[in-house]
């Protein structure tokens, strides 16, 4: 008779699709225990997914660094005249709403 636990274990070992989704999920939130175990079992034996996990983390890190940079130093700038004219339109629109 097949051992159901062993079947589950083998499935986790083979399923890179699931492991990679879990890797992304784990980088954004905490995995429930069952998913965590399947993730660890898979990662122990799969270099492709270990590398994917690293890649995914690198993408997150790069995107986050860029976000912070955009906050501090926006790469695209409106010139002074554009700024004045836009703020003027905003002020006028606000008046028309408030009245």
């Amino acid at each position, binding site marked *: 008779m097949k051992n159901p636990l062993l079947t589950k274990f083998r499935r986790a070992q083979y399923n890179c699709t699931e492991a*990679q989704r879990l890797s992304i999920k784990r980088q954004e939130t905490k995995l429930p225990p069952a998913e965590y175990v399947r993730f660890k079992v898979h990662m122990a034996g799969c270099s492709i997914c270990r590398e994917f996990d690293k890649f995914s983390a690198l993408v997150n890190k790069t*995107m986050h660094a860029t976000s912070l940079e955009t906050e501090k130093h926006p790469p695209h700038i409106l010139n002074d005249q554009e700024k004045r004219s836009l703020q003027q339109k905003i002020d006028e629109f606000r008046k028309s709403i408030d009245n």
Partner: protein
Amino acid sequence: MKTELDIGKWVLLHGDYLFSLAKYKLNDDDLAKDMLQETFFAAIKAKDGFRGDSSERTWLARILNNKIIDYYRSRKKEIPMSEYLSATNRAFNEPYFDTNPAEFGHAKPAAFPQIAGMGSDDNINQAELKKALYDCIEKLPTTLSHVFLMKHVFEEKPDIICKHFNITSSNYWVIMHRAKLLLRTCLSKNWVP
């Protein structure tokens, strides 16, 4: 956190930042400026709804993001995301993973070529990686890039993104996985560190 909006200083305080976000997502100067103005007008209409549970800037960025998504929606007929995902599931996964039941979901090594320089962080030129990554993001299908950018440029939480696109959390992980698979493939071809 303060609950008063500083409308008279909006352009000075947030103009360049919001313009940069809009420019990044729309890739068009005039359109980005129009969208920026629409965002400010919409924000004024909604100003009584500002509760101060996020910063003024985050609140404005969220309105901008909604405007941009509405803009893309208005341009094409949209099919629900979950339908799109299930319809494209097999075609998408086949090049990457084994679909034969015995080895279901097993990665095909040829679809995961090594990316040079991935091994150690020191060897990576951050500026070059950033540029290559952004070029690759531009090539993502818009359905995926909207979700990806909402997470990684607007830094929204998964539950807010799911509500916004009306998708389940499992749809969300599938989308992020697909986006990263495509980015990985693109970078392995286009990025030489």
